[in-house]
């Protein structure tokens, strides 16, 4: 049997690409190095009885077109809409609770600022108009502004028309807001430090920048793409953990005839006569196919999986310069009881979405300052999820799993990462949690701390960067992963990129895999 395509990596993008190709009748094999599928979106039994979204606890926007076409719901996907998308407990006992219910959110904001409550619906509307535009861009290949091919010119023109359809205000917002800093955008609209801090934390998610850095307003919008107006934070939750989405994708792919092999590590891509013709596994096994799709990040793909001697040094240099500075550590806690946040007591559903302990823009900026000079933030910004609240099966009865993203924990720590520093980071995070939930430390049964270095070693995330390259303005659309490779094809015939290194990148579940599958040329 000759394979049409080999997909390297069974993360969300690799599986989506495989499912999409298989659905169109292609014979596809997915090769996953680890024993578990999901890549950085795996749900794993880290401690007996406790299943964690080990790395990423948010699948981002799951495009309805993908869910529908791949029949993911039939294959077991259950999406839950949390009661609140973003809840920010404050140390003074108050909290902020946001949801797509704009009136209810405004009610919560009013406790911090009446003016901000009044501005909220308009802000959500304006931002939603922009994120709808981004969402549209994320469902199609990136426009290439320098291309003179008739098809590309046509799509540029079509894009121009869609931009015009935003109306004058929307168009100016688009041009004006994307390059702004989140701090400037939020200062334009709001006065409440609580509200600005909570949205500010979203604006620096996964990037090595503070909220005063230009382009962070774009990050806020990117993380909001596909969400209903006002649903900042966790707008969609996958029941059973993010790994359940990988499971549904794998089931869909298998149902269409694709094969998914785990514990099958690709050593390198076979290149014959300037063409990718298959892969060689660590075991020495050779597998051939008409096309190879790599969901590994672009640098790993070209620096480790491919013999580069025949490739353009300019292109390789550009690949070497993709910025992918790891900024996030992960702490996973097995808890003996439901966490009790002092300021969230009694509220129904307040723990169901994303929990961001109160932080101000200045605190976020100072946290970034620490990291930019090579240290762990003395007061890191935390983002918490408790997936076991949505699916009791993730933990033993009455017990819970808590997933904490910690920012900033730089990959390039001035003195290097050691086991002692890893545990010190864990202690720091638990102490920070205890400020809001004093009883929490006493309920911790087990704890896992993953530094950016751990994320790189175990999950092959470059520099521990969850996005396979920071999602900043200079690394999106036609510049992702590098100019000239934004359409998934590589300079090597038969080799394609299909991972988060490519447009639209992290935050759009399977988005790159979906578009890459369509770009594969079997002729």
């Amino acid at each position, binding site marked *: 049997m000759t394979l049409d395509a080999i997909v390297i990596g069974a993360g969300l993008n690799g599986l989506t690409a495989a499912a999409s190709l298989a659905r169109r009748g292609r014979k596809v094999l997915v090769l996953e190095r680890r024993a578990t599928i999901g890549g950085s979106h795996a749900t794993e039994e880290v401690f007996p009885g406790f299943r964690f979204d080990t790395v990423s606890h948010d699948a981002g926007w799951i495009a309805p077109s993908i869910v529908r076409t791949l029949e993911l719901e039939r294959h077991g996907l259950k999406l839950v809409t949390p009661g609140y998308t973003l809840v920010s407990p404050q140390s003074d006992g108050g909290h902020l609770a946001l949801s797509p219910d704009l009136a209810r959110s405004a009610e919560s904001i009013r406790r911090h600022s009446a003016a901000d409550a009044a501005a909220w619906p308009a802000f959500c509307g304006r931002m939603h108009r922009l994120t709808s535009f981004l969402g549209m861009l994320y469902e199609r290949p990136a426009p290439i502004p320098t291309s003179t091919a008739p098809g590309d010119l046509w799509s540029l023109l079509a894009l121009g028309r869609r931009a015009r359809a935003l109306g004058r205000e929307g168009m100016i917002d688009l041009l004006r807001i994307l*390059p702004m800093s989140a701090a400037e955008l939020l200062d*334009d609209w709001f006065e409440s430090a609580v509200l600005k801090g909570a949205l500010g934390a979203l604006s620096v998610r996964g990037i090595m920048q503070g909220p005063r*850095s*230009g*382009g962070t307003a774009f990050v806020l919008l990117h993380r909001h793409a596909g969400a209903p107006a006002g649903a900042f934070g966790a707008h969609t939750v996958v029941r059973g953990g993010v790994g359940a989405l990988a499971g549904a994708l794998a089931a869909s792919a298998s149902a269409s005839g694709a094969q998914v092999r785990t514990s099958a590590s690709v050593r390198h891509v076979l290149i014959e006569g300037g063409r990718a013709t298959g892969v060689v596994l660590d075991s020495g096994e050779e597998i051939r196919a008409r096309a190879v799709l790599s969901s590994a990040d672009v640098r790993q793909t070209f620096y480790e999986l491919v013999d580069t001697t025949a490739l353009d040094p300019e292109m390789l240099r550009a690949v070497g310069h993709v910025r992918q500075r790891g900024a996030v550590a992960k702490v996973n806690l097995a808890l003996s009881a439901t966490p009790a946040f002092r300021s969230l007591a009694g509220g129904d559903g307040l723990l169901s979405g994303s929990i961001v302990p109160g932080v101000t823009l*200045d605190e976020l900026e100072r946290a970034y300052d620490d990291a*930019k000079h090579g240290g762990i933030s003395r007061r890191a910004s935390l983002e918490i999820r408790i997936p076991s609240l949505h699916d009791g099966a993730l933990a033993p009865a009455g017990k819970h799993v808590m997933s904490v993203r910690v920012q900033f924990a730089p990959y390039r720590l001035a003195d290097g990462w050691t086991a002692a520093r890893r545990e010190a980071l864990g202690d720091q995070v638990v102490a920070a949690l205890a400020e809001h939930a004093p009883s929490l430390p006493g309920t911790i049964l087990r704890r896992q701390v993953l530094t950016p270095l751990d994320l790189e070693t175990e999950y092959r995330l470059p520099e521990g960067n969850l996005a396979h390259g920071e999602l900043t*303005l*200079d690394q999106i659309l036609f510049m992702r992963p590098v*100019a000239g490779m934004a359409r998934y094809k590589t300079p090597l015939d038969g080799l394609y990129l299909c991972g988060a290194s490519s447009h639209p990148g992290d935050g759009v579940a399977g988005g790159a895999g979906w578009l890459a599958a369509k770009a594969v040329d079997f002729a």
Partner: protein
Amino acid sequence: MASAPRYDAIVIGGGHNGLVNAAYLARAGRKVLVLERRPVVGGAAVSEQVFPGFTFSVFSYVVSLLRPEIIRDLDLPRHGLQILPLESTVTPMENGNYLSAWGDHDRTRRELYRHSPRDAEAYDEFGRLMHHMAMAVRPILGMIPPDPTSLSPRDLMSLLRLGRHFQSLGADKFPWLYKLMTMSSADFLDEWFETDVLKATKSASGIIGTFLGPRSPGSAYVLLHHYMGEIDGAFRAWGFQKGGTGGISDAIASAARELGAEIRTDAPVARVLVKSGRATGVALENGDELHAEAVVSGLDPRRTFLQLVDPGELPTEFADAIKRYKFRGSSGKVNLALSELPDFSCLPGVGAHHRGAISISPTMAYVERAYDDAKYGAFSRQPYMDIIFPSMIDPGMAPPGRHVMSIFVQYAPYNLTGGWTDARREAFGDAVIDAVARFAPNLKRAILHRQVLTPADIERITGLTEGNIFQGELALHQLFFLRPAHQWARYRSPIKGLWQCGAGTHPGGGIMGASGRLAALEMLGMGGRANGGGGR
């Protein structure tokens, strides 16, 4: 009493843009009056004898961006324009070494070899790239911004031409331009060089006048902006006007007068007269009313629209946009009268380096930490500084044997925590001198007089809002058709007959004159010509 307008145009503010605007209008036969609040013309480009015998370019101190077509059109050399080149930039390092860059490319290359052969090799390619990028942006500097939301044939044609221009850069160059527009100068330079002091010194061009650190996205554009300078066709050459930058203003003023413009100093404007939505003239602070067909403001947008105009005359949307427009002054200036030149430990004695610029930017972390202080409302304890010794280039600036030293300082935030006071100004001056003295220990005993200018002082003296030297930050969201506000980036304003010609309009700051010229062309109905079209 309505009387017939005496002037075709009244220009508010005798800064270099106002003067350029007046000169171009006069050249087209218009009757023009320039009104300057201070006793001298020039705005932030003035030379003044601050201490007896010592003349300073008080604020703006170097020139490179002045548009060649203006020099040509106004015949400025005949009126006294004489730019003397700055030969070098030397950066003293903390280990006693230094990095120098020279007008002579090969010499710079040899010097770089001393630090890193790899960087010396990359330097050529980098220079070529930046040259290409500056060339790519140059036509845009001379262009009147189109409105991307408009459907008028003129706008559509301009947009199309712009699109074609970018497409013509091709797939190999356009991505670099895009990177320069979106990246931080530190990240951009990291892609090219490994020598920290080289990157620190180059990245400093990306923070001048801007409330950004070298690691903040957006700073790469400011870097490019400073690369667009041109003296006698040589890119990236900075020069010094004989007699100080006031000499440039005087040359433009002289050209304007010769062309028939009238210039009045000590004539502060209190407000713009508006009748039935139309500007009819100005009222001076002394109560005099002067009438004209058109009023052109060379002041920054906040001053023009929120102080000289009755707020009721402006659409709310526009007034809001002007209120949102960011200034965030972040630069200070220290001017010193010296009994002797500073003796730099890295290059002892008096040497060629005193005829060039000294950059206090020893490491990237040094510059970034300078920003960190400012972010939270303090002046930099150890600031980035750009230093020149004008008396070494033009001995007439100081008494024989003595010297003047100009120190541009980044960062000194306008919104200092607790506000600027006399005591804080002096503390700031002390910090600046301490930071220089680390590299030139004799400095303190050489100081005869010192003038310390905080952003608050710059605002008070020149009128520049928040002391921002560019009349508003050169941030991506405040450039081109968004400068100063959407729909009003073409030198017009919502009030008929009231025009803008300051650096708060495209293309912005530096002693460039482009805003003044483009505003005049647009007023004269010749804007289409600037954009490469055939009139309108």
